[in-house]
């Protein structure tokens, strides 16, 4: 940054020099001065609605909105003068006056930005109490529960749904005191164009949005001695679960997680990464076939259920582009209820498969009619990373001090390829590793495909496999998915293989992951930390290519036959169909 573009100002008696265009809020944070915020969500919702971040600027009438207002040369800012504090307390008082203040029994107790503000500003009573808006809770969908009674109208969810995901399932409706965030006609999210990506939950500062909990069902099954309860954990869960217990973002807690699950009483603890290896075998085989036959190219991945719901609703005419593979945990559930059940002589009807996922759309996916084998669901319950943390806390397990354990045999062993499934570009990279070696029969010189890694929303690359060049695209976030779909729709797609994940950053940033406050999101690169942890797991893996996984090789040999073969198709593949955007 050149000297000329720097702006000098004084914040709370500290001299600050920041680049032109910096907001007062950002400038203050640079020198460790904390300005409280509520509606602010960096790059997504910078609107100045809540008024918590007001500060005093000398010589200016009224308060400055520090999350929006840019710094000016010579500015003198006071972030915590008595007048500012008084005004902030009045604002918070007003917000609390229209809020269901049942913090003790709230899902976000202890992790609520509003609660934190109330504590910080010493709100010991609500002076301006009055009538409250009363809303019915929407818990119709299998994935999301909306409780407007906890909503503070920050509109972070609306901005995320519209600007990041380009969906617009929710909007500000009504006006004045009766404003609320709602769907068209106040219908359930279940009946509108929501994809259940859950990014709104991640952006919500309070308990107004949360996943539909399955904790109680899982406890019931764990109590039941006649049920064989198997749990599998998705790749992204292990690099985020620790955050719920105060551990550093990006800590890999695989071993503790497995111990905790065993302590909770699960009969078997398996790794969905193995399921991911199956997906690569099936999807890779499917791609090679379709590439050779030039059949419905580009082929698009199908392991992100939010994305699948999106294409079913928005681009049904492009459904043939979708891979017919089930997602990894569904494949794995199907294997458990067929191969594993038969091999261990367990009645599949007695098996209860629980998936721990970073995702809430998986809750929707799980109950799709297509996800059944012999009348049994492949997976019986999906809980999020957050729900698992809640269960561990319920069981009073001292997570941080747990010993490490290994996943159970014989399904425990997975590859590094399976691990990186949880990051944007990971599915593509894992697929390319296997496709390349399966097609050429030669070992890859360079196993890392750096060109599909990283935080960009859309990544394009050309990969050489033998004599063939394959153009690939990786998109994360549904807003970016739409760009790719429009290219395909308009016939502009010159690529053959597309990976799409509904959540920006992939599963590590999924709607079921630990919720990070606005301040952490603005100051820490959460996505990078979690992604780095995933790639480290890959680096340290003994086997890093799915087709080399001995567990898979054994199961294909003993049970499934060839990848893409008849039986594999029957239990590991599915089909998708057009869905109406609105059922109202």
């Amino acid at each position, binding site marked *: 940054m050149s000297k000329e573009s720097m702006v000098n100002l004084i914040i709370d008696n500290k001299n600050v020099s920041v680049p032109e265009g910096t907001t007062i809020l950002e400038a203050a944070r640079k020198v460790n001065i904390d300005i409280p915020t509520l509606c602010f969500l960096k790059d997504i919702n910078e609107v100045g609605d809540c008024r918590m971040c007001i500060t005093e600027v000398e010589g200016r009438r009224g308060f400055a909105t520090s999350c929006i207002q840019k710094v000016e040369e010579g500015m003198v800012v006071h972030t915590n003068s008595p007048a500012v504090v008084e005004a902030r307390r009045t604002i918070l008082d007003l917000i609390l006056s229209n809020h269901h203040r049942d913090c003790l029994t709230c899902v976000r107790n202890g992790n609520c930005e509003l609660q934190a503000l109330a504590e910080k500003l010493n709100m010991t009573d609500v002076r301006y109490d009055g009538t409250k808006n009363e809303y019915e809770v929407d818990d119709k969908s299998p994935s999301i529960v909306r409780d407007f009674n906890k909503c503070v109208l920050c509109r972070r969810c609306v901005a995320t749904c519209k600007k990041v995901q380009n969906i*617009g399932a929710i909007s500000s*409706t009504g006006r004045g005191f009766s404003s609320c965030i709602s769907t068209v006609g106040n219908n359930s999210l279940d*009946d509108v164009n929501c994809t259940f990506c859950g990014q709104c939950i991640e952006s919500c500062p309070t308990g107004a949005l949360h996943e539909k909990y399955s904790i109680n069902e899982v406890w019931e099954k764990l109590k039941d001695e006649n049920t064989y309860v198997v749990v599998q954990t998705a790749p992204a869960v292990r690099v985020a679960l620790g955050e719920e217990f105060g551990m550093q973002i990006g800590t890999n807690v695989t071993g503790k997680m497995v111990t905790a699950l065993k302590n909770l009483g699960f009969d078997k603890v398996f790794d969905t990464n193995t399921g991911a290896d199956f997906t690569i075998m099936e999807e890779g085989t499917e791609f090679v076939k379709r590439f050779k036959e030039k059949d419905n190219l580009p082929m698009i991945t199908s392991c992100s259920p939010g994305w699948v719901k999106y294409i079913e609703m928005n681009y049904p005419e492009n459904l043939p582009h979708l891979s017919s593979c089930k997602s990894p945990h569904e494949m794995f559930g199907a294997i458990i209820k067929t191969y594993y059940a038969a091999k261990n002589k367990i009645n599949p009807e007695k098996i209860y498969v629980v998936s721990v996922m970073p995702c809430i759309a998986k809750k929707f996916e799980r109950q799709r009619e297509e996800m059944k084998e012999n009348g049994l669901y492949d997976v019986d319950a999906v809980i999020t990373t957050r729900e698992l943390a809640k269960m561990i806390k319920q069981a009073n397990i001292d997570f941080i001090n747990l010993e490490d354990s290994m996943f159970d045999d014989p399904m425990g062993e997975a590859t590094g390829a399976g691990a990186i499934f949880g990051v944007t570009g990971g599915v593509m990279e894992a697929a390319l590793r296997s496709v390349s070696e399966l097609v050429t029969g030669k070992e890859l010189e360079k196993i890392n495909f750096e060109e599909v890694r990283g935080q960009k929303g859309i990544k394009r690359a050309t990969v050489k496999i033998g004599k063939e060049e394959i153009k690939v695209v990786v998109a994360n976030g549904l807003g970016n998915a739409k760009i790719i779909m429009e290219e395909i729709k308009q016939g502009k797609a010159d690529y053959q293989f597309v990976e799409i994940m509904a959540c920006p950053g992939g599963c590590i940033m999924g709607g079921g992951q630990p919720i990070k406050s606005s301040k952490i999101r603005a100051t820490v690169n959460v996505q990078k930390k979690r992604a780095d942890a995933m790639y480290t797991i890959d680096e340290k893996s003994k086997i890093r290519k799915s087709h080399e996984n001995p567990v898979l090789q054994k199961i294909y040999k003993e049970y499934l036959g060839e990848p893409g073969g008849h039986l594999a198709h029957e239990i590991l593949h599915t089909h998708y169909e057009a869905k109406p955007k609105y059922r109202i």
Partner: protein
Amino acid sequence: MEKSENKNCACIDKKLEKELKEILEKYTNSKDNLITILNEVQMKYGYIPKIAQSKISEYLDIPMAEIYGVITFYSRFTLKPKGKYAISVCLGTACFVKGSEKIMERLKQRLNIEEGETTPDGKFSIDATRCVGACGIAPVFTVNGEVYGKATVKKLDEVLDSLQ
């Protein structure tokens, strides 16, 4: 939620669809035409039918929630048809000072409904408006747009009696 708000046959929906298409074709699909189109639909049908919301959503590529957000923001737009006699009482300041509040109270009492509601028989609906510009003859109320000036509770009663 019922499937179709028109409890009548599909041919009515078809007719509506055709008319909506004609309205939409008058405008480009630029998003800033939303309010103009909604105004036209509101004027034509007296409310914004659900099917219109859906057609506009497709035409302008705006999610339905956002269109709903716009409809519920502006008080001219309504989601339900008004009564056969739509009565509006002006609650602008000039009328307020001359006692329009009493006229509104009386009206609500007589029809036993609140502002923004329609009587169960669909005959009357009540709205409050902010200044119809007839301040010279305040207080005023309107029935289907026709202005009754220098209104009194008695005059209102007479008008209601004549409509009943």
